[in-house]
């Protein structure tokens, strides 16, 4: 008999996005300078908040609940860091207020104080370490990102920071922030806010890394390269423990395979420049390679359960890529593909850092429980999807630019029908 599990209540710290993507070039150009007073204020505000958090910690230990006034103050601080981070990362345009009390285009809703467990409260900072690690790789919080694991975040550039840098150029050029990048930054900011709120004793609910949890959820436009993730959470511990050595033969094989793939891509580039289309045979050969890389990466990152094959056949692995057949490509885009690729490569590297942290945490969790936390699985899955799209774009499988949205999959038709009006 299967038990029906009750849907979990909404997280006490919820991301709300009301941004219209428009940006004023003047404030974008001077964004960092304009934020300097805010950064000074954030330091003072943060010092006060962290001192008060200690008082709240004692209150929760004894009373199991944070005093409402202190809770309100700390909630204001968390919201303020959200506004400021969103402003810095170009996830929002208006100049933020200094109290965190007013609504902002990228904001969080924080529930009033609720009873908390004493044991969890006693070890709160220790328990928060994995969340801090993930938050720093996302770099989505002025508070959490700077307080722990800076090396993890800086190694990958941090997702939100990378979005901010790339978004600066995009917003200056088009006076708009690309939706996928805005959503990626907003997701990072939301997770950072949940982590800060957890560390500051605003809630005892652990931060939720599930990508795409926002109001409204991020969009994922149709793309010639899409991923399907199997929902199976079980992971045999033996395969988890030896995951890395088990993929070493695959890594060697993929390295050898990469040589003809590069040659094929060079030929495809010349042909595409001449005919505006990559030959079907080369397209299929390179697509198999990209699929094989995704299968192996999914296994290595504990996103996938079974041991992957070597040939990258479509439908052969539960985490699978669908790559559309060869289509016409604009010659200019083909000619400058290497140059156009650079921003996507930077973002791919940032997503790779996030996936690495998610995989390490997931590996530990799966080794202990025999199950992969779905939020970490999906987060690493988003990274896999984005990296596959970047690789496909680089290897001329598609002319469509990678979509940096943190959404994992497009809603299925059935889900669309079932969704309330």
């Amino acid at each position, binding site marked *: 008999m299967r038990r029906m599990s009750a849907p979990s209540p909404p997280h006490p710290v919820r991301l709300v996005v009301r941004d219209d993507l428009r940006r004023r070039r003047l404030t974008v150009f001077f964004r960092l300078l304009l934020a300097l007073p805010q950064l000074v204020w954030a330091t003072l505000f943060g010092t006060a908040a962290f001192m008060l958090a200690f008082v709240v910690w004692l209150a929760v230990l004894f009373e199991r609940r944070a005093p409402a006034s202190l809770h309100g103050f700390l909630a204001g601080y968390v919201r303020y860091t959200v506004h400021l981070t969103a402003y810095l990362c170009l996830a929002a345009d208006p100049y933020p207020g200094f109290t965190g009390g007013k609504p902002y285009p990228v904001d969080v809703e924080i529930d009033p104080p609720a009873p908390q467990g004493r044991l969890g409260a006693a070890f709160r900072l220790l328990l928060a370490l994995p969340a801090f690690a993930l938050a720093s790789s996302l770099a989505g919080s002025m508070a959490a990102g700077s307080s722990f694991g800076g090396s993890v975040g800086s190694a990958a550039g941090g997702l939100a920071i990378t979005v901010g840098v790339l978004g600066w150029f995009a917003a200056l050029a088009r006076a708009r922030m690309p939706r996928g990048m805005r959503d990626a930054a907003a997701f990072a900011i939301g997770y950072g806010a949940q982590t800060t709120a957890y560390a500051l004793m605003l809630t005892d609910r652990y931060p939720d890394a599930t990508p795409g949890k926002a109001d409204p959820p991020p969009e994922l436009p149709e793309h010639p390269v899409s991923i399907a993730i199997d929902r199976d959470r079980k992971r*045999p511990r*033996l395969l988890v*423990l030896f995951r*890395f050595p088990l993929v070493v*033969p695959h890594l060697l094989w993929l390295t050898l395979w990469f040589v003809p793939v590069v040659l094929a891509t060079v030929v495809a580039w010349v042909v595409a420049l001449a005919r505006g289309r990559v030959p079907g045979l080369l397209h299929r050969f390179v697509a198999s390679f990209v699929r094989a890389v995704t299968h192996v990466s999914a296994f290595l990152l504990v996103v996938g359960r*079974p*041991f*992957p094959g070597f040939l990258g056949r479509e439908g052969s692995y539960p985490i699978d890529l669908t790559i559309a057949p060869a289509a016409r490509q604009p010659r200019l885009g083909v000619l400058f593909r290497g140059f156009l690729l650079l921003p996507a490569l930077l973002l791919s590297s940032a997503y790779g850092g996030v996936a690495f942290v998610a995989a390490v945490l997931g590996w530990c969790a799966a080794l202990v429980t025999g199950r992969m936390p779905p939020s970490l699985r999906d987060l690493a899955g988003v990274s896999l999807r984005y990296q596959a799209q970047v690789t496909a774009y680089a290897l001329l499988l598609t002319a469509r630019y990678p979509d940096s949205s943190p959404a994992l999959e497009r809603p299925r038709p059935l889900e669309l029908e079932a969704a309330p009006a």
Partner: protein
Amino acid sequence: MTALRFAIGAALVAAWLALAWLLSGSAVPDGLELPHVDVSTVFGRALVARTERYERLLLVIWVLQALAMLGALAVWARFGGRYASESAAGPIGTGMLLGMLGLAIVWLVQLPFSLVALWWHRRHDVSHAGYLDTVFGGWAQLGVTFVALSVALLVVMGLARWLGSWWWIPGAAVLTGIVALVLLVSPYAYPGLERPNDPGLVARYDRLAREEGVSGIPLRVEKVSDTTSQANAFAFGLGPSRRVVLWDTLLDGRFGEREVDVVLAHELAHHSSYHLPKAIGWFALFALPGALLLTLATRSRGGMGEPLAIPLALLVAAAWMLVTSPAQNLVSRRDEAEADWKALSTTRDPEAARRLFRAFAATSLGDPSPPTWAYLFLETHPTLAQRVAMADAWAARNGVR
């Protein structure tokens, strides 16, 4: 049909024996009688007692590790097939997964014994390796083992699925070819080898190489002194990739120039006597019956082409290697004895050889005269007592002291 099989079998056995005879030639004079060596007198009573104590626990650990390996593989052979459902890699890929997991389990069950052995080495100042390095290094190193196993299984399972039960004849040949290829290219990929920075050492090496007729083989030094105090050297490679490698622990002042010359001459003798090409031949000779045994043993599970046969094949292969290790060690000891003899003939310095072997006992704590079973199953070289005896025999034959 039976007569045909009998004829093929007889031909193969005859070919096997002929090849073994060809490979068995040695520069050591036929009927050489080694004089008796009193180990207490030559090595000192205290050192002998210390090496025996040191080796005793290591032998116990070896036995326990062998039992743990066979036990783990027996359990894996029985239940490992369940993990076939954890593969999306097709039959050969699934076989690779089952093979790799089998070796992973062996590593896991042997790990506690390895750590005890490391503790023992550290206690006797033979090793300086860290415990965490050993655990995580071993875990990561499994990847290299897995690559080798995957390649072997790709060949074996691919041929078995193509040729059926006759795969073992071309299979042994292909595996031998792969071993030869690995031996050829491994010197180029071997990390951490450096040119010696002592011109005197290089000059002596060149002179010895000329005397043995193998000039042009590079000498390299491997830095191991941060993990062990044991002294060692080895020869590897084929044709253009041939190398002689000295551990830097041989050059730290504990061994004199004359002793190092004996080591150099010994390693050069491996090349001048073609021991490495011969080792490939011996591999082929052992691989052929081993492959046949695998074919017969896995018939009940559909043969070596089926992934479910792989856990059983691992057990059979491990048992085969254990059972044949006395024979393989015998071959190895013959080669080592020949290298010792040629080194003595080249250096004409039996006294340096005696000092070298006595120093090996002191620095590596090798038992000069181990128990017979350990000698059969573990010793790839003649015992230190036998090596001293050979130096004595050479001296007596050549009128040198």
